[in-house]
């Protein structure tokens, strides 16, 4: 009997309406684990070179993590994989909620869809019976409505992943929703699901997930839970704005321990960072052109973390999470409840557009979740449109009468509604900044902040150049969930993985901005670790607590019965990352084109604010990163020796 994984996947051909099981050999799990690793292995081998991301040849995979359902913590994330229509290369997005264990409960590690259905359908698996059912009655409904309807039909216990109207309308910044507002949003994979005419996946299974040594897993989990739950007294949320100011002013810093971040997450969730980030220069403001001077504490207090906990009815935990950073909140307007907006959503819809109205942020968060649109990309695209309008590139005629000025809440809400409905200017903007800038022309590309088509998240790479490196050098560009110098400090990988350097206990801030070998090594370690962690189904916020306190490697050994060292697991991460890069080359992507917009690199440097005078030597950093991975340092292509050494076929 397989341990930790189920040993099977389900292949669904939507063109023919065929559903087939496939046994996956043990060797594949040994080399790639499950989750993103299994997805990368299948897609690299099966998506033909040059396939149209929105055509029948593209494969969309729903993969659960290797550790999901084993009794380990933070292991409830599932990964959506496919060729991205937004970047043209490797695409993935991951999400929490309860969908990941549901895949395994149906007896599969992953479900892969190919082809295009003639009419809207959804996949329903009830125990061993998998069938494609007619979705014409739910097509056009929003994500929450669809989930309610499907749960009423197929049982309250079933887990549902759906696309909203954005995905149906093939918006390239759409994602896949589950649990009424958790969303696998990045890489535009909602459009892939929409192109396949697949509205939803409904899972209701009860299969058991076997593990090698449940006692050992529980022992590790109980130790881990202590790190997560012990109470730490905290000041009111507004204090963090001043902590941010201090971090901006100080010239000396020390490596940060993730325990502080977990404490903030436990009390407020990611929104705990709202004011801290905008004060210290981590949050990009005014479409990456502004700074903390434009959005001082006087303005950022409108997004004070305490305002979010005030609106919170109850905490929301994803499956297998002892932390519970989410929440269910009340809000004003037509909807009664929403998932607590995340830091990324809040900053993208407020600071990036200079919007100071918190009610509108809550409303837009729910609206975008229901539409199945990526809040980061939607906010980034709205900010781009505003800047174009302010600079005279777009006129009031182009915007259908919307006065798109910085901070005009009404116009921003109306614009995003148009983007969801793909009406007028909304149609132009619904595919993200890269496509919009290409259509608009007139020099608008200078204001389109994207890396290879993907709008970067609300972490400024001029403040932590590690972010910029990962935005540009990852096979799926524009991601904030893989690495940064800050992340390397918090992962504390040097405590578990042999040969990795520990950061010095005190360093000057200026030393951060050097593009040197050591920092390339940190970035490579983060990339390997996160590729591995996504294959294991782990949550980034759990990993921030530190690799020793959240014992991912030990959990895996206890769950599978293997006896692999952390270094061997890191090699699995390296293999997955290299497959993703090779996937991009197979599909004719030049990784140099993933370089982020010059403005986000500090070219020219800003003249005021936290990131004044800083620019990032990204070319040197990318080259050093590629070299350390065993990829060609000029082109980023994985060398034959690397491919051979990692046994990629």
């Amino acid at each position, binding site marked *: 009997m397989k341990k930790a994984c189920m040993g099977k996947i389900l292949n669904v051909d939507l063109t023919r309406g065929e559903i087939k099981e496939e046994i996956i050999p043990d060797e594949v799990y040994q080399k790639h684990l499950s989750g993103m690793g299994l997805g990368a292995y299948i897609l690299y081998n099966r998506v033909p070179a040059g396939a149209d991301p929105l055509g029948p040849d593209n494969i969309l995979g729903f993969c659960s993590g290797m550790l999901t359902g084993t009794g380990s913590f933070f292991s409830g994330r599932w990964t959506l994989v496919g060729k991205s229509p937004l970047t043209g290369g490797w695409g993935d997005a991951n999400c929490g909620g309860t969908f990941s264990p549901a895949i395994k409960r149906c007896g599969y590690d992953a479900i892969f869809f190919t082809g295009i259905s003639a009419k809207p359908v959804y996949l329903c698996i009830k125990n*061993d019976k998998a069938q494609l059912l007619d979705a014409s009655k739910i097509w056009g409904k929003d994500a929450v409505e669809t989930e309610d309807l499907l749960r009423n039909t197929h049982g309250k216990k079933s887990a549902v992943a759906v696309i909203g109207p954005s995905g149906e309308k093939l918006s390239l910044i759409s994602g896949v929703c589950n649990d009424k507002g958790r969303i696998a949003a990045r890489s535009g994979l909602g459009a892939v699901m929409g192109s396949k005419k697949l509205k939803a996946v409904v899972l209701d299974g009860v299969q058991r997930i076997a593990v090698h040594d449940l006692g050992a897993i529980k022992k590790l989990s109980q130790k881990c839970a202590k790190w997560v739950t012990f109470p730490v007294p905290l000041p009111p949320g507004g204090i963090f704005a001043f902590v941010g100011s201090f971090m901006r002013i100080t010239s000396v810093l020390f490596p940060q321990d993730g325990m502080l971040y977990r404490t903030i997450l436990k009390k407020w969730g990611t929104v705990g960072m709202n004011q801290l980030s905008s004060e210290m220069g981590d949050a990009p403001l005014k479409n990456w052109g502004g700074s903390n001077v434009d959005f001082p504490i006087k303005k950022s207090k409108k997004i004070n973390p305490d305002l979010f906990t005030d609106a919170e009815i109850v905490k929301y935990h994803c499956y297998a999470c*002892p932390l519970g950073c989410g929440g269910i909140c009340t809000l004003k307007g037509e909807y009664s409840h929403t998932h607590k907006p995340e830091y990324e959503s809040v900053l993208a819809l407020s600071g990036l557009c200079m919007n100071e109205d918190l009610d509108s942020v809550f409303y837009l968060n729910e609206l975008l979740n229901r539409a199945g649109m990526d809040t980061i990309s939607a906010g980034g695209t709205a900010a781009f449109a505003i800047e174009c309008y302010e600079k005279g590139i777009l006129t009031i005629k182009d915007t259908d009468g919307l006065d798109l000025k910085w901070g005009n809440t009404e116009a921003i809400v109306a614009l995003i509604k148009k983007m969801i409905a793909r009406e007028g200017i909304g149609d132009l903007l619904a595919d993200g900044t890269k496509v919009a800038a290409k259509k608009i022309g007139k020099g608008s590309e200078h204001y389109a902040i994207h890396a290879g088509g993907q709008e970067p998240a609300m972490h400024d790479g001029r403040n932590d150049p590690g972010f910029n490196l990962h935005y540009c050098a990852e096979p799926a560009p524009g991601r904030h969930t893989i690495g940064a110098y800050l992340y390397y400090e918090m992962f504390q990988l040097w405590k578990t993985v042999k040969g990795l350097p520990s950061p010095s206990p005190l360093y000057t801030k200026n030393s951060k901005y050097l593009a040197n070998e050591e920092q390339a090594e940190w970035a490579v370690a983060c990339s390997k670790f996160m590729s591995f962690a996504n294959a294991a189904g782990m949550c980034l916020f759990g990993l921030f607590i530190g690799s020793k306190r959240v014992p991912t490697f030990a959990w895996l050994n206890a769950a599978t019965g293997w006896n692999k060292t952390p270094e061997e697991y890191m090699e699995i991460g390296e293999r997955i990352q290299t497959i993703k890069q090779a996937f991009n080359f197979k599909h004719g992507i030049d990784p140099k084109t993933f370089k982020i917009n010059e403005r986000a690199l500090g070219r020219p440097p800003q003249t005021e604010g936290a990131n004044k005078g800083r620019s990032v030597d990204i070319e040197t950093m990318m080259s050093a990163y590629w070299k350390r991975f065993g990829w060609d340092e000029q082109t980023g292509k994985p060398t034959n020796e690397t491919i051979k050494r990692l046994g990629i076929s």
Partner: protein
Amino acid sequence: MSHTITIKCNGCGACVKMCPADAISGEKDKLHLISADLCINCGVCGKICPEAAINDELGAVCLRMKKSAWPKPRFDLKKCVACINCIETCPVGSIGFTGRTLPKDPHNYPCLENEKTCIGCSFCALECPVDAIAMFSAPIKAAS
């Protein structure tokens, strides 16, 4: 090994109705069969069978139990970390949320929401990572 049905089976179909995995099949009044691939060893078929015709995964005969005597989970909320593993694990969806019960503790804890549908399989207790669930057969007395 899965649960199995012996020739004592009279084909009454009581187990078919209870099985959460849809693992049991057979015609009315004929010998039934448990699919080894689908069986999750929850044991509800053995508890309900009037003929003692079911053997458990170790081959021992399952004894019929009155429904009121089936064990039920009891949650120790001091240990519970609200990870909702039990809610997801429950094969019959009997476990639900308490909602926010204390003003100072905003977490959403699990509770036995639907006692009638609980089949006493103990999977929640088995899978609870922090061992916050124990199974009790006796009726739970309210703490005074």
